[in-house]
């Protein structure tokens, strides 16, 4: 996949931070607003795929290696399962929400009813959202990057 024209690259360079921030917002506010790790991760991975289409796979593979993305995905998966097993250790139930009710980390319990959004709530749910978001970002972008890199011919690459 070769790079596109300068117009496209400029527009993508403007649009990439906006969509990146939007996706990270969806992940970080997964326990307050609609969305979560999967949805926000898909948005961020789409922004990265936009970079890949506009700048070409050679430029992109020089910036981030597929091996690093695989490491990030494995870290997200291990963090997710690790949080589930921490629930087994601290709360005696697999996937137990053991952080809810404390006073320092995501432990505030909101009043029942439609309350104002407080980001310091919901126990382990934000942490699981971060883990799944990292996993989805790295996984989807690794798929797109590897496909684009593998289907680029050597002739096209060395042009």
């Amino acid at each position, binding site marked *: 996949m070769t790079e596109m024209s300068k117009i496209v690259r400029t527009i993508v360079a403007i649009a990439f931070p906006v969509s990146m921030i939007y996706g990270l917002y969806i992940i970080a506010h997964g326990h307050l607003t*609609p969305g*979560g790790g999967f949805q926000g991760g898909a948005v961020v991975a789409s922004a990265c795929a936009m970079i890949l289409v506009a700048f070409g796979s050679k430029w992109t593979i020089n910036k981030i290696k*597929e091996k690093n993305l695989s490491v990030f995905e494995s870290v997200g998966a291990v963090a997710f399962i690790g949080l589930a097993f921490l629930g087994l250790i601290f709360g005696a139930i697999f*996937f137990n929400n053991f952080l*809810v009710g404390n006073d320092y980390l995501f432990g505030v319990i909101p009043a029942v009813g439609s309350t104002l959004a407080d980001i310091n709530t919901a126990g382990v*749910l934000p942490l*699981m959202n971060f883990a799944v978001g990292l996993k989805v970002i790295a996984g989807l972008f690794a798929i797109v990057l590897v*496909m684009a890199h593998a*289907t680029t011919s050597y002739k096209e690459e060395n042009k």
Partner: protein
Amino acid sequence: MMSKRNLAAAVFLSIIAVIFIFSALLMHPFGVLDASDMDDYVIENTQEETGANNGVTSVVFDYRGFDTLGEATVLFTAVAGVVMIFRRLKHD
């Protein structure tokens, strides 16, 4: 003149059609409320039990965490398969 094969197909399809028609007639009527104990429980208790304002996320990551674990496993398997295939393709 019907061959044996066509006759068997006709009989089989008639049985299937009868089953489908009866299941369509016996379906739960549209718009009538069914038992909703589970929904009411989640709506009433999700803020106290999980502390999340978003009930959907509390179901996905807390009440039905195993389901999300399975989804994550599916995604992991898909990524592993795609990366395995296309990494080999590049070196040939």
